[in-house]
């Protein structure tokens, strides 16, 4: 029988994979997509909690996941637009090239 722990372990594993991509890859697009993976992992966790939770009729997990998807979509749209602008400016989308935060 599949327990809640299975889902949560899977979600945390996906989160870790996304985190790995976000801190490792140099390409800004891949970094953004890795962040999407982390979002998805969080959504999966929320929906699983809703499914196994004591008050499924409240639908909190589902509603939260929908909000999460919405925000992730907004984030992806703005993020990819920024990537395009950064590409125009730096002629590159390598995250390491953007170092103007350095004092």
């Amino acid at each position, binding site marked *: 029988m599949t327990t809640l722990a299975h889902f949560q372990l899977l979600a945390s594993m996906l989160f870790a994979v996304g985190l790995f991509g976000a801190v490792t890859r140099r390409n800004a697009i891949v970094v953004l997509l890795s962040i999407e993976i982390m979002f998805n992992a969080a959504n999966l966790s929320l929906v699983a909690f809703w499914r196994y939770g004591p008050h499924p009729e409240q639908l909190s997990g589902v509603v939260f996941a929908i909000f999460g*998807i*919405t925000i992730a979509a907004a984030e992806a749209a703005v993020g990819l637009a920024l990537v395009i602008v950064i590409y125009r400016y730096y002629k590159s989308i390598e995250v390491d090239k953007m170092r103007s935060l350095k004092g």
Partner: protein
Amino acid sequence: MDVTFIILSLITVVGAIWAVTLRNLIHGVLSLVLFFFGVAGFFFYLNADFVGWVQILVYVGAVAILAIFAIMLTHNLTAKDEPGFFSLRWLTGMAIAAAVGAVLWFAIKNNAAMLQTAPAGVTSSVADIGRKMMTDWVVPFEVVSLLLTAAMIGAIVIAMEQISHRK
């Protein structure tokens, strides 16, 4: 643990790993699509049908296509000079991801409530979700719609800046 869970887990995990490791960005996005479908499958499996459809529509239909366009617009079909598997960078990344994953694993393992099985008869009809959205969650709902509008306008404004300069 049943067969559906195992198959879906394989799809998602493999899709995610490919998405973050493949050098060819188009291949990466395609494996990401695989991952998105896998997660959508999980949503169906968890009786959250509506979320599953939203997942497919938004992620596969919009985010993945957007990413492909971004890749093409930046002439970046393959990631050049990405360091190798055993580079310091990748090892650090793996260590960090493993540490965070271990924390989560630790938290899940030490929680007895995690061992419960799924109660029967849990559903989420679109009508129920709609009712919830319009009653308990109406303020966040409106805020999110505002945010989405702002993000859409913002994305357009950011990306078209060059055109306005050319004029």
